[in-house]
Structures are given as C-alpha cells and as structure tokens.
C-alpha cells in the first residue's frame, strides 16, 4: 500500500503509522460512563469506506486524514489533519 502525502507526494506504507478512526469525539467532562466506554472502546467495524488518522513519521511528520476502503484498501481521499502545517491550522 502507498499513501500520497499532501505535503511529500507518494510514499511507501513503511513511512506511516496508523492511529485509528477519526470519528470518535471525546465526551464532555461529566459524560455518562456509557458514553466514555463507547468513546474509549467501541468502534464501528465498517466494511467499506472509513476515515482514519495516519502519521507520516518517516517523512514530514504531519498527521493525515485518510479515507480508505477496508475491503479493497483503495484510498479515495487524503487531507492534512487539523493542525498539520501551521498555515493550515483551521483545515
């Protein structure tokens, strides 16, 4: 598998580290135990397009948001995660 880093271009998988699903959002302080349990442990096991964080640690050290099909490994979109690149901080 290769990932096209929006900053570096096409690179081999070995330069990247997988973090996980971009969907879970940290619950507000005081959220119920069920909400926290869901946030920490429960993931949708999607057969199809998922949105994931990948880290280009062996390259420009930017975090990326990658849409990948879990059935085919086809990547349909890659964008810098918020904060990747100071100029694009609100991206």
């Amino acid at each position, binding site marked *: 598998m290769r990932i096209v880093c929006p*900053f*570096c*271009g096409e*690179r*081999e998988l*070995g*330069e990247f580290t997988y973090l996980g699903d971009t969907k879970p959002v940290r619950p507000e302080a005081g959220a119920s135990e069920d909400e926290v349990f869901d946030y920490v442990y429960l993931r949708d096991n999607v057969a199809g397009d998922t949105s994931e964080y990948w880290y280009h*640690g*062996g*390259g*420009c*050290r*930017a975090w990326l948001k990658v849409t990948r099909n879990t059935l085919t490994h086809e990547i349909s979109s890659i964008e*810098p995660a918020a*904060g*990747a*690149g*100071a*100029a*694009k*901080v609100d991206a």
Partner: protein
Amino acid sequence: MVDFSWAPRSPLEKALVAGVHGARRIEADVSLTEIRNFDLVQLMARRGKGTDLAKAAKARFGVVPPDAPKVVQTPDATLIWSGPDQFFVLSKGGKHTVRTLAPALSGPASLSDQSHARVLISISGAKARTMLAKLSSIDLHPDAFPVGAAAATSMDHTSVTLWRGNDRTNGQAVFNVLVFATFAESLWHTMLDSGAEYGVAISHSENLA
C-alpha cells in the same frame, strides 16, 4: 576544580576511515563525504504563523523559503524544506545561527539549533543513484529528482532529509543526506555495504558541497 574542554567531535569520528572501501577499481564509483562543522537551525512556524514566517524569512534571506519539498539557495545559506511550514537553514561560519536569526524570526517561528544533532553526508559518483536505490524508495531519476529537489523520508528505517545539490563540475549529481547524529553510524555502515560492490571513496570535508 576540574577544567572541562568541549571539543566538537563528529559522531562518525570512529566509523569514518578515509580511503577506499569495497571493490578496488581505477576509480571508486561512489564517493561518500562527511561535511563537518556546519551551522544548522530548524525553523517551525508557530500556530497559524506560516505566512508570517515566509514573509520574515524573505526579508532576512532575500528569498522565499521553500513551501514544498525542495531547497532554496542563497549566497551563503541553503534553506531546506523539512515539513509543512518548517525548514532548515544550513550554513557555515556562524552567519546563520539561532543567535543571529532569532531577532528577525523568533516572532513567527520557533528556532532550534540542530548543528550538533545531525550528520551531513554528501554522496556522488557514477553509481551514486544505484547505491542509494538500495536504501531509498524515492525516485532519484533526474526527471523526478532534479537539482534542488528535497525529500523528508526514511532510509534503512531512519528518518533523513535528502536533497540534490548542484552537480559536480564533471556533471555528476550530488545527493546530500542529513541524519540524526545517533543514527549516523548505523546509516553510514549501511551506505558502505550498499556501495561496496562499486568501490567507495571515503573522505570528510569542512566545505559544504
């Protein structure tokens, strides 16, 4: 009271043995030169200050710093892209150090001195590309990686900053690699192994290529 003296020493001081390594030919087809005693400062834009850093750097260096994987040359410094909104300033002789750059650039950027944290290896020779192809997944064909091209990438599982300098007078390409000091000896040995079949001419120099 004990007097300490802090003499700078290359992390490759033991590993680098000047001379020829591997195949003995009329002329070694790979040359590895360690460049010693350089000034290296990394600038990273503060949050939301990418554009401000580019402006301040233009005022300081007279050129716009690289905003893509490439290098920009000034009369006395090389600005090397190292990631989004960040770059290295490589120079000699104390002209561009954290101390001299901070007044103009510490507003929009954080500066960190990497002079003694990196080793700089310059690679050239008729088989330089072939030797590097064993270590790097970057396409180094002249069409894909011309003079001035740069890459933040990995070689032998080690993060490096790679760029193509100006060609030698004989037309041969020059590839420069900045590697973390503590990984330098390991990468150096890997480069020697990779180049051995072509013959490697080993040296060190005080001059930036």
